[in-house]
């Protein structure tokens, strides 16, 4: 079965949403990770922090409530959830680095079997900068990489990252449209195979050694 880009992203976002528990404070990378909140069960309310100084990012505004003074880190206008608040960058990052975030979900260019993550630079080609990504990953209690399994067919889960790192030895979990992995003290484990993939498919599209411990 061939998945469209949209379908692929929805599969990943839906799976990420299952990782959230009621009351969790989470930070979400721009793009795919942000979509996960759309698939939360109705009884699970989470608090989304955005590095630009919003705690309690709410829905996207309609025409009437749109206000350019309330954006998320991607520059998109958002609303504030009831009980949320605004803060400066200094507090926003104290919150992250200080261990006050339960779950962080980020995309990756590469992620490896040791839990290293690269997502801010392809030397000579693409250097948007790390923005808040390096801070987002340091203090969080759980770091999930959510991404498409491959980029133009090339594996993004590798034995050892070759791109400049965002953080070393910190990723706890990888979620793609093909399955789920955990990074444990003794290495990478495949813990889930998606209905849209197979062990064989995952072996072929993953450039890292992994053990298997399907839950």
């Amino acid at each position, binding site marked *: 079965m061939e998945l469209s880009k949209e379908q692929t992203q929805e599969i990943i976002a839906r799976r990420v949403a299952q990782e959230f528990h009621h009351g969790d404070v989470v930070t979400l990378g721009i793009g795919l990770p942000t979509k996960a909140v759309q698939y939360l069960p109705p009884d699970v309310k989470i608090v989304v922090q955005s590095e630009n100084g*919003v705690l309690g990012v709410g829905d996207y505004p309609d025409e009437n409530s749109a206000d350019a003074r309330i954006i998320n880190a991607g520059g998109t206008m958002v609303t504030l959830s009831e009980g949320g608040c605004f803060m400066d960058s*200094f507090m926003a990052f104290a919150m992250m680095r200080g261990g006050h975030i339960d779950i962080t979900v980020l995309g990756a260019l590469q992620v490896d079997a040791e839990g290293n993550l690269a997502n801010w630079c392809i030397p000579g080609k693409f250097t948007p900068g790390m923005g808040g990504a390096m801070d987002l990953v340091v203090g969080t209690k759980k770091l999930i990489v959510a991404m498409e399994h491959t980029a133009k067919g090339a594996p993004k889960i590798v034995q050892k990252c070759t791109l400049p790192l965002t953080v070393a030895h910190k990723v706890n979990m990888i979620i793609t449209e093909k399955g789920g992995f955990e990074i444990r003290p003794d290495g990478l484990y495949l813990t889930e195979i998606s209905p849209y993939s197979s062990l064989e498919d995952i072996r072929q599209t993953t450039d890292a050694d992994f053990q298997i411990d399907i839950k």
Partner: protein
Amino acid sequence: MAEIISAATAIQFFKSGQTLMIGGFLGCGSPQLVIDELLKTDLGNWTLIANDTSTPESDRGKLIVAHKIKKALVSHIGTNPQTVAQMNRGELEVELIPQGTLAERVRAGGAGLGGVLTPVGLNTDVAKGKPIIQVDGQDFLLEKPLKADVALVYATYADKYGNLSFYGSTRNFNAIMPLAAQTVIAEVDKLSETPLDPNHIVVPGIFIDYLVVRGR
């Protein structure tokens, strides 16, 4: 007591070659009027300290397009292709700084601290050439304080004493940069006739030298 001036008057506090801090996160909470006036001058050759270089059409981004920045200390340049292009051509030096580290460095400069000891960037390119300090067996990067000649920030509300407060997510770096610069200019949406509520002031007026009021 802050002096209320026009955007055009504000340019007298800028000199070529200075280090400037400019507040804002992309276009949100970004000063604009003074930047537009600066674009009319032949001043430049500045070192810019800011969260990002915005977009080519907006605020800080326009300074990049006009080649007025020789060095940028920022966390993100991805939204301004001009920054990337000038960097790749070697016309613009860019020091990419993790955003939280940037915030701490600015505040350290403003608060008289010798630097920041952060775990962010350890074992990455960010750590290159920087001292690592061990505290209780754990490694931390020593990141140095930042200061500027002029800080140009935005605020939603001000009073004549220079006190500032903010609406929404406009606060970002605007709240800390005023501590770290020699001369501080705040561009504000609304100047309150009466003093702001002293319990809700984010930036105390003593940090603010000049106010530029939008819509005047």
